[in-house]
């Protein structure tokens, strides 16, 4: 994520590092490169101007040219400034004390409103809420059906009234419907619209005026260009948007829009969409994102993801198994499943500090490799998984056939498993297997 911007900064700092000390000319060169990098990252022109001016002042004040390690200082400084632009603290959904909390999802066409609505419902339900989705996109063909299908995957209820009713009336009916039911959150998916489409903007204003939603979230495509600021501004003017969700950040867009929006709008970025699955959804942390932009990795997110995939009981059970050397293929299989819940290999790698430095993020990962290993283990009997030593030649042949793989693949897996087991034997303390 944001790999290009990171690379640019790295190149700038490397050049400075090689020179040792900075003079006024170096500072200007550096600022020039930062400026171009930010513009190419789609940070809004005006924001870049302001940002670079601030950096210039900082650089002069901090007396970089006297420093022994200007590179470190500039990284720190740019990081601090980017964090400042992104907003200084994280911000979650505000839950109304008087349920239901109504959350309105708005945005241009194709930014990912419907997908985000479902992800948000899924996220809130995991935190113990009961969400109902409301389908008000009466304009785009099959939009309501799309919402229903996506919601079904996470077993989320959808309230819809077809495409003939006015959007505001659908929301009203939904409110009435949940009044005597156990839902504390209504997430309203609206039709994509241009900010200059007066008729459709009036539709939003009508919902805003009559329903008074607690949360009005604008979805912004992280690949958006300079115009993102213009459309966002109008949405804010018309319905007073109070939060932003940045979608599709699993692409390679440099995501400059994130920097611009925070600087120009009053609304914080609350969440990010990180993939096509319903749980590919994260809270937006400005300081983490700034670290990520600078290639300092995102260890905090990684740890949190691992923590949510493993509960404490399981970790201690696993530790016992490893200590007593009971770790078998069943456990191995379980670990693979957990890995999948944490994210794709690519997602995990992108969060490792220094990944961009080592060019790890340029490597190609194929998550299907994990699937193949899973298939092989699934083709084993319980006995074989509990006691891999009994897997002889004819069993290997059967397993290969059953999983549609080569015998050599089965051999490789068993060899790897034994290596892992041997490694484990040597360890005395295992706290958070497999990431300690």
């Amino acid at each position, binding site marked *: 994520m944001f790999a290009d911007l990171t690379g640019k900064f790295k190149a700038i700092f490397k050049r400075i590092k090689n020179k040792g000390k900075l003079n006024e000319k170096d500072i200007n060169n550096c600022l020039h490169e930062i400026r171009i990098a930010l513009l190419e990252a789609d940070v*809004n022109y005006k924001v870049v101007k302001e940002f670079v001016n601030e950096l210039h002042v900082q650089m002069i004040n901090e007396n970089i040219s006297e420093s022994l390690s200007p590179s470190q200082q500039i990284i720190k400084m740019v990081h601090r400034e980017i964090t400042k632009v992104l907003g200084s603290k994280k911000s979650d959904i505000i839950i109304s004390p008087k349920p239901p909390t109504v959350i309105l999802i708005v945005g241009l066409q194709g930014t990912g409103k419907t997908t985000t609505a479902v992800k948000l419902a899924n996220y809130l339900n995991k935190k113990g809420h009961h969400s109902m989705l409301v389908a008000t996109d009466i304009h785009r063909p099959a939009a309501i059906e799309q919402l229903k299908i996506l919601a079904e995957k996470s077993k989320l209820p959808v309230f819809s009234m077809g495409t003939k009713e006015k959007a505001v009336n659908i929301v009203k009916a939904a409110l009435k419907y949940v009044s005597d039911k156990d839902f504390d959150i209504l997430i309203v998916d609206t039709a994509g619209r241009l900010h200059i489409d007066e008729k459709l903007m009036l539709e939003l204003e009508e919902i805003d005026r009559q329903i008074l939603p607690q949360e009005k979230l604008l979805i912004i495509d992280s690949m958006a260009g300079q115009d993102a600021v213009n459309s966002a501004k109008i949405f804010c003017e018309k319905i007073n948007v109070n939060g932003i969700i940045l979608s599709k950040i699993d692409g390679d867009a440099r995501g400059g829009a994130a920097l611009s929006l925070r600087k120009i709008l009053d609304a914080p970025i609350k969440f990010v969409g990180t993939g096509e699955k319903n749980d590919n959804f994260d809270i937006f942390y400005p300081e983490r994102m700034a670290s990520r932009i600078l290639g300092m990795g995102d260890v905090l997110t990684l740890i949190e993801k691992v923590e949510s995939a493993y509960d404490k009981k399981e970790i201690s059970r696993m530790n016992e198994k490893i200590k007593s050397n009971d770790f078998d293929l069943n456990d191995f299989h379980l670990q693979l499943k957990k890995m999948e819940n944490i994210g794709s290999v690519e997602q995990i790698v992108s969060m490792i500090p220094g990944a961009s430095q080592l060019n790890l993020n340029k490597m190609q990962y194929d998550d299907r490799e994990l699937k193949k290993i899973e298939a092989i283990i699934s083709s084993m009997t319980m006995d074989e998984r509990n006691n891999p030593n009994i897997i002889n030649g004819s069993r290997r042949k059967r397993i290969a056939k059953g999983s549609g793989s080569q015998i050599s693949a089965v051999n490789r897996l068993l060899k790897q498993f034994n290596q892992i087991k041997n490694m484990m034997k040597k360890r005395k303390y295992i706290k958070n297997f497999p990431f300690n």
Partner: protein
Amino acid sequence: MKIVNIFSNFKNGLVKSRENLKDKIEYLIKKSKNKEIFLEQLEELLILSDIGVSATEEIINCFDEINFKEYEKNDFIYFKKKLKKILTDILNHSSPNIKIEKNRLNIIMIVGVNGSGKTSAAGKMAYKFKNENNQLLLIPADTFRAAAIKQLNIMANLAGVEIIKSSEKADPASVVYDGVNAAKARKKNILIIDTAGRLHNKINLMNELKKIKKVIQNAAGNNYSLEILQTIDATMGQNGISQAKSFNESLGVSGIILTKMDGTAKGGIVVAIKKELNIPVKLISFGEQLDNLYYFENEKFINALLD
């Protein structure tokens, strides 16, 4: 009459960006006290249109060579002409627009990132070509996104174009294989394939597209043409270049469909893509009506932008 209509529609779609640019350039030249201020404001204008840093620098350099003292402050026609010429030089391409021939199978495959307007473009294109007296078949090969097949079916019905059956979670390559054979059996001359949106950095998904292309080439026989068109959202920033680059490297993109030109975004990314990758824009799409799709013409595009 029809041509006039098309042209005025085309201009209406562009009216927003045109007014902005025209007014701004006039304003710039009238108000600019000196060259530095003028160049800085021109830079701002160009960057904000998403044409990219490199194209902007090129244009700025051209203006930098001018001796401002020789021109009247309000002589903006000269500057407009010069800007027009620079843009024309960048956008200019000699390859013709989509070439449809009656006695062969013209296959058009639409690709692009999520939410860039593929399905809408497929529906609009079907409508356009049907009105130009072609025999069409649509293939809904987006078997991944929920309700995408239904969306294209609704559009096919509106356009009055045949569409083959497909079901969610089906292998898109096999849907395409069936579609190509159906088109041959039903003696169609145009086959439009709508594919699932995918981010260009997802290797597995890009490989899936390569496979679909191979299936087309194997199944289509001898008498066919294949046009691979990529949708680029006009609101897209510089990542559009990265998108075009990846899709082009995987598939060989023959042209761009510039979508959502009815907003305030200028669609300048098209200039950057042409400049960096030499991929021409072939179609322009805006609005939600079926008939809002036109051949892209550099001359008209630039004129509408500057006149």
